[in-house]
């Protein structure tokens, strides 16, 4: 799918709003180390895996921000940033920029501001976020279901059917779990919840997926209450 760089698809958006989001990216403390200035050489594109399959260019993104082209930045913010593989092959940049890092900042701004494009990009992702936020491990054995990964091969069905026994067939004592990747202490999970609370991450989740926020809030507030913390995520 070709990217429309004209920006006409966002003609209805207030320039002030685009500029506000642009400033939010620049204000991040990491910004100054991610973008010193762009030579526009394209070495990042040569290294980039996403550039081979998507109409995606780390050079154009870095360029748009370096040139302060707010309209173009807004197009990338909505239509491009989720194609990035976050591999940081673009850190090969001779100017020591990190287009991938810049994209991370742009994604955070998109999520923080509840952009529809961010919500759409994360639609299929809810369960992973739930796993990481609630269990302390990001993926789990019980995510291997044949209907979720039919393209990985027939072994997924074998795994799903034998999951409980195959997990007990693992020598490491911490790995007999099915709902999380390893056994995490209750106290550790509580500490993780407190970190999410103190750093405002739950507010970001609320912007992206209200249903997910609701169940996480539920799980976390209950556990924190049991541990003696009076914390609310509202």
């Amino acid at each position, binding site marked *: 799918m070709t990217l429309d760089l004209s920006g006409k698809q966002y003609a209805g958006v207030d320039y002030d709003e685009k500029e506000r989001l642009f400033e939010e990216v620049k204000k*991040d*403390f*990491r910004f100054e*180390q991610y973008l010193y200035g762009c030579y526009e050489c394209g070495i990042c594109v040569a290294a980039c*895996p996403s550039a*081979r*399959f998507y109409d995606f260019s780390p050079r154009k993104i870095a360029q748009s921000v370096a040139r302060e082209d707010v309209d173009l930045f807004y197009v990338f913010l909505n239509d491009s940033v*989720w194609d990035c*593989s976050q*591999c*940081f*092959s673009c*850190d090969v940049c001779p100017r020591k920029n990190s287009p991938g890092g810049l994209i*991370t900042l742009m*994604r*955070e701004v998109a*999520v923080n501001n509840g952009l529809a494009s961010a919500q759409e*990009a*994360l639609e*299929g*992702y809810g369960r*992973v*976020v739930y796993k*990481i936020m609630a269990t302390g*491990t*990001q*993926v789990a*054995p019980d995510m291997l279901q044949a209907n979720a*990964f039919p*393209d*990985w*091969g027939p*072994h997924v069905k074998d795994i799903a059917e*034998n999951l409980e*026994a*195959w997990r*007990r*067939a*693992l*020598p*490491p*004592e*911490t790995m*007999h779990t099915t709902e*999380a*990747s*390893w056994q*995490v*202490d209750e*106290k*550790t999970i509580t*500490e*993780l919840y*407190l*970190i*999410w609370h103190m*750093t*405002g*991450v739950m507010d*970001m989740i609320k912007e992206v997926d209200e249903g997910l926020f609701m169940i996480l809030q539920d799980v976390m507030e209950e556990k924190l209450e049991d541990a003696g913390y009076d914390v609310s995520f509202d």
Partner: protein
Amino acid sequence: MIPHAAILNKAKDRKFEADPDQAPTEDYHDIVNQLEKEGEWEVHRVPEPYVEVKNKYGRTKKIPVEQTWHHKSCGQCGHIPGYSTSIFWINRKLGLDYHDPTDQTSCTAWNYYASATSNAAAQAAVAMRNFAAAHETGYYPIIHCATSFGHYKETRQQLIHHPELRRQVRAILAKLGKKLIMPEEIVHYSEWVHAVRDRIAERQVHDMSGIRATVHPACHYHKLIGEDAVYAPEVYGAQRSAIITSTLQALGIEVGDYSTWADCCGFGFRHILVSRDFSRSFAVQRKIEVMKEEVDPDILITHDTGCVTTLDQSQFAAKAHDRNVGLAVMSDSQLCALAMGAHPYKVLQLHWHSTDSRPFLEKLGVDHQKAFAEFEQAVEELKSGKKEYMTWEDADG
């Protein structure tokens, strides 16, 4: 195959020698130590005995040998558990004391790179909480996943340069009753494997001199804060990281070079879950097919959760398109364990993989049918309730 040796031989008048004084990047050791002097944090020193390795610009990095705290990978433990199992198994066989913690969270970087539903402060707090937890046990952290590793190095960079971030993280940890602890080195487990490769080779029971392998290095290992990766003049002329390659060569394996060595595998973080056509197209066309055409290896070895996942799981769908696939994939830890005689199913847990490693096992003279029957027997005992778990003793029996 690319005639590596011949090319290097021709260029032997042009020598590249890494000189730390000429390095274009800062030395994080200096700053980490300086900040300790200023009372900003406590440095968790690498315990002795350690092995010194050289990185990209000739600086020295200390790799701990034992008393290690294993920062596990969610993707490994969750989906390819033989990967983590092998790392522990090798430690046990080498008689090295280690700790497998339950006071450990995921680094959360997979989620962060996929969805950005987090921020720098949360990521730093998660990292430092894990490091504080390690310090409390007295064991030194080594990291199982290359993304955790790369991400933690990025976090270190941010903490080094931003006092306000340090202040914020210190305050968060204080509320959890923890101190701000910065490890002297952030170590990837494959660097540990590299450091003890001669000990592994000493205990090798399968002759691998007839084996040809290709190596895939993880982007987050050698591109993210890339100057920290292991380099050696005798491997690729120190133009590329020696990681994994050195290990395989120590086992007598012939490592074949290929033109897309530096390419990503295509994992993508969110792509592998929600845009898988990209991941498998990239993995097959830029990595697997190139390896098969240029090297025709017996096995593909890599050292990261996402890379094993992508390279292993992308080949099945590609078969339907008659692509040139069918290359068995495993981690360096699984390969080393196998070399030392580990059971292919009880330890390597190869039944969780998509690619078929049986031809490779056959080439090594491993009776995989017998081995799988032993595994199935063990599973029956678990299902019938005769045994509750497979123990380390069972895995070797």
